[in-house]
């Protein structure tokens, strides 16, 4: 196949059309903040910097990028086999390394050492704060949703509900809500941690028992409904929740052991360690659950519910358990968030949050605890960086466009996620064998 064959030129045309669409979407026409006059015209003719080297109209930048992509694809196709094999062995590397126990332990210790000393190297408290709020809390959320989606195979589109329960329970019990605290006696924030976790778990059971009888799509829609209800409730019931304005400040946590006092204050570093301790605890708990009889029952239900029932597994019971267990870390995420942010309001618990957590889980690798944690770190770091530096004319509004594109690419090339769980990867392989489609054919539309 020569590079100028008809099929390959058709491919060039396709790529350029897609590039043009991307140029429009990422440009002035796709921005709510651009002056209305610029529009599509601006998306193409605005002059942009070429990585700080020189400036030229945007269309030229995108045209060049499109041609480069086309050349890469043209070069790739004849060598697809080799490249794919190379990529596979590259991606198999982490698995090969971590299959040795000592290597796993070493890796974990190194990772632990890095996260323990990290605050020494982050001098700006702004960034430290972001690490806790944008990464730490989201790892907790992703770990929790992973139990529901990854372990039990239940599509939950309303996970933010548990996050909200944790946060609002904290605000309520510490007396930061318009609704009077329980027994009119606010309690210290630190004590709320177990209560907040428990509240989220109870809520998981209450929410799960009626709804988890539904399967697949129906469950997804119901959980979506719950997220919208919670969102709406906290927004409108201002007498109870403070409405859109939110709570009054939640007191900072303080520890008083009689002989030892510690107060979490404005500095984010102590929160960082609090969060870290709980992340480690949740990772340990979820890992041992995964390898327990409960974890195996979850896999059985996920793979074949009818077969699972035939060996005496009660699907409803285990699904409710997955909801409750997942809610625990989601709820703690809420407590953490309330303690750190101080003032909580509905904008922290929107439907968008639920979708976001799901993205982290899918990206990291459903069912893979380490994958999900890594996925949360990668995506949340990237989005925090983009939001705060706005490089290359990046606009905050476009974030979900990029995340969507990332997920599409991910689903094509690495559907089981960044660090897939072994079992999940096999399930994907099974599904793939069912209708054998090669990745490059999906990408380019060619049939074998």
């Amino acid at each position: 196949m020569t590079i100028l064959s008809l099929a390959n030129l058709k491919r060039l045309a396709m790529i350029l059309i897609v590039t043009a669409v991307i140029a429009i979407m990422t440009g002035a026409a796709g921005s709510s903040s651009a002056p209305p006059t610029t529009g599509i015209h601006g998306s193409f003719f605005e002059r942009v910097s070429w990585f700080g080297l020189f400036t030229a109209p945007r269309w030229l930048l995108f045209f060049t990028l499109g041609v480069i992509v086309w050349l890469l694809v043209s070069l790739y196709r004849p060598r697809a086999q080799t490249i794919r094999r190379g990529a596979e062995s590259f991606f198999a590397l982490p698995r090969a390394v971590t299959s040795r126990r000592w290597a796993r332990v070493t890796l974990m210790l190194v990772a632990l050492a890095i996260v323990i000393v990290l605050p020494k190297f982050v001098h700006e408290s702004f960034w430290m704060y972001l690490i806790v709020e944008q990464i730490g809390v989201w790892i907790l959320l992703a770990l929790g949703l992973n139990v529901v989606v990854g372990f039990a195979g239940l599509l939950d589109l309303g996970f933010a509900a548990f996050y909200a329960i944790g946060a609002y329970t904290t605000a309520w019990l510490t007396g930061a809500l318009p609704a009077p605290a329980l027994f009119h006696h606010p309690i210290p924030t630190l004590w709320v941690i177990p209560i907040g976790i428990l509240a989220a778990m109870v809520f998981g059971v209450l929410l799960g028992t009626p709804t988890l009888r539904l399967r697949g799509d129906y469950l997804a829609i119901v959980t979506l409904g719950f997220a919208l209800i919670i969102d709406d409730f906290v927004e409108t019931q201002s007498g109870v929740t403070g409405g859109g304005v939110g709570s009054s400040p939640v007191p900072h946590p303080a520890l008083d052991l009689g002989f030892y006092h510690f107060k979490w204050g404005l500095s984010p570093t102590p929160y960082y360690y609090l969060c870290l301790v709980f992340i480690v605890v949740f990772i340990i708990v979820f890992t041992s659950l995964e390898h327990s009889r409960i974890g195996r029952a979850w896999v059985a239900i996920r793979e074949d519910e009818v077969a699972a029932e035939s060996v005496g597994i009660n699907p409803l019971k285990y699904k409710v358990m997955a909801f409750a267990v997942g809610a625990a870390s989601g709820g703690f995420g809420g407590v953490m968030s309330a303690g750190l942010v101080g003032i909580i309001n509905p904008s922290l618990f929107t439907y968008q949050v639920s979708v976001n957590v799901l993205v982290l889980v899918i990206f990291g690798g459903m069912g893979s605890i380490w994958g999900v944690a890594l996925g949360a770190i990668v995506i949340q770091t990237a989005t925090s960086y983009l939001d705060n530096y706005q490089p290359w004319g990046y606009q905050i509004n476009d974030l979900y466009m990029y995340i969507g594109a990332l997920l599409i690419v991910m689903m094509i090339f690495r559907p089981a996620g960044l660090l897939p769980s072994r079992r999940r990867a096999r399930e994907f392989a099974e599904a793939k064998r069912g209708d054998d489609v090669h990745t490059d054919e999906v990408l380019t539309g060619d049939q074998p």
Partner: protein
Amino acid sequence: MSDEATIDYILRAENLTLRFGGVVSLRDVSVEMRRGEILAVIGPNGAGKTSLFNSLTGVYQPQEGTITFMARDGAPLSVIGKKAHQIAQAGVSRTFQASRLFNALSVFENIKIGAEDHRGIGLVGALVKGPGTRRGEHVSDNLVIELLEFVGLTSEANLIASQLSYGARRRLEIARALATNPEVILLDEPAAGTNPSEKLALAELIRRVRDERGVSVLLIEHDMKLVMSLAERLYVLNFGSVIAEGSPAEIRANPVVIDAYLGSSHEETSA
């Protein structure tokens, strides 16, 4: 043993009727199974054999009729209205016509899931792994090893279920069903899709299930030679109704059966 009162029944379905909208899958079906026997259900495709199995195991809920399971010790259990997992826990186990294994799990794990006790919550036990939990693990691991040996999959223990040959898959499914420690096992076309030598091995295995493990066997099978040599008694279903019941010799000689089934689908069974 011919005296009605002294017969020890293990499973008894009376006057079952099961409808799906306008389709009647089972029409006034009564089936009695004695403890310790190998009983077969035969009949042409669409006769309602699988529907009967699904009714007996709580997957389908018949609109009319009763099903009673008499466990060796304990009160008779009324199956209708119970969930599939409750019936499995009570001691009625099954395999499926199109095998339903946990395909991404290993052979060992497949059986282990069957061997584990799924009652109770066990959240604390799973986390703390106290002596009770460890003992439970030990017991189920031993059962798995024993069953691997029993069905002849010991050397395949660490393979992924989907890597197994067809015959091995069917044996794995039987092992998984046996892992629940059932008193009766329902096998839905266990030899379907297997080659002649695998078929012989399966027949041998089914006989051993009853003889060595003392599990009563209810069997659906299309292969006449196999079923006639294996079963002690047969029920013949046609269009959702029982049209005959008896020993293999009686069934072979029954003109109604020959007319409805053995004659008409002769080509199919030999194919």
